[in-house]
């Protein structure tokens, strides 16, 4: 009599979970590689960005995010600027005064980001220049007026930062620009 080989019957009390674990580990590895966690360092999520259809995607590398909004002080709207310019390098946005657009705290912080600790062109190490530094301006669509934004733009220009991007959000129910 030929002894046919066949799959032995499973007599285990529990279902075989090994394939389930394999699939779940694959999914976990996928999420770990593809998902972005904590990438938007320095961005103030409370800001209501304006909508747009046109625009590019941008990799936020070598980028300084400047958040511009206003707060009500004694019945007046005062410009509030935050940016991740803390010298400790924590990446958390801190409030910074604009004051004089060419020499104020914001201008000095931008010069330090652009030209290093000495805030002058040239240098190595901590004084090394960063010519490819990009600035992303995140301003509140409903609260910020141009008179609030202009000094910030002047400070950026005073620091000779050439790559400026304005952060917007895609209009809902739109995926491609309309003609």
């Amino acid at each position, binding site marked *: 009599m030929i002894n046919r080989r066949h799959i032995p019957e499973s*007599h*285990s*009390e*529990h279902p075989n*979970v*090994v394939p*389930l*674990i394999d699939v*779940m*580990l694959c*999914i*976990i590895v996928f*999420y*770990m590689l*593809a*998902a*972005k*966690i904590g990438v938007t360092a320095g961005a103030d999520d409370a800001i209501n*960005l*304006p*909508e*747009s*259809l*046109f*625009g*590019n*995607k*941008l990799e936020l590398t070598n980028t300084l995010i400047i958040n*511009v909004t206003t707060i009500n002080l004694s019945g007046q709207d005062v410009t509030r600027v935050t940016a991740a310019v803390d010298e400790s390098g924590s990446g958390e946005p801190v409030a910074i005064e604009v004051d004089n657009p060419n020499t104020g705290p914001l201008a000095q912080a931008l010069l330090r980001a652009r030209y290093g600790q000495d805030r002058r062109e040239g240098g190595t190490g901590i004084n090394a220049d960063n010519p490819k530094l990009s600035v*992303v301006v995140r*301003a*509140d*669509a*409903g*609260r*910020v*007026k*141009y*008179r*609030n*934004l*202009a000094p910030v*733009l*002047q400070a950026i*220009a005073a620091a000779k930062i*050439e*790559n*400026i*991007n*304005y*952060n*917007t*959000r*895609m209009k809902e129910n739109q995926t491609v*620009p309309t003609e």
Partner: protein
Amino acid sequence: MAKHYGAKNPARFESGPNMTPLVDVVMVILIFLMLVGSFATDQLFLQQKAGLLDVGSTAAKPPEPGEIPDEPIIVRVDPTGGGGFVVRADDIQATTGDVLYPQMKQRFETLTSIGKTSDKITVVIQPNGEIGYGQLIEVYEAILKAGFEKVSFATAK
């Protein structure tokens, strides 16, 4: 799996280590990553390729005969009653970005048809101080969509 035989004990199989705690931990990690991670974002970036310009400055030297001067196109944005705005540039006038876009596109096509390249054409937006940032972006986007590359903002009003 080891199979044990005995005279009185029936055949039994060892099922191996208990996988249940491993499955629990893996599911918790998976749910954490699903909630915290983000993939496609709805954020866009409008790039500015020209620096701030002082509208009051004049050209350094007069253009050569036959040379088309690189005068910037000044686009003024002023507020109107009711929270709206009006955009004016030479013979162009619009109150929304959708109305501004075809006029600016026609202007761009006119300039490129006479030999001007996009890197030679500068547009300077001169907004009133009370113009909202959302309105400003609407105008900026319309001008960029029309094909202009060098679009900047004015320092002086």
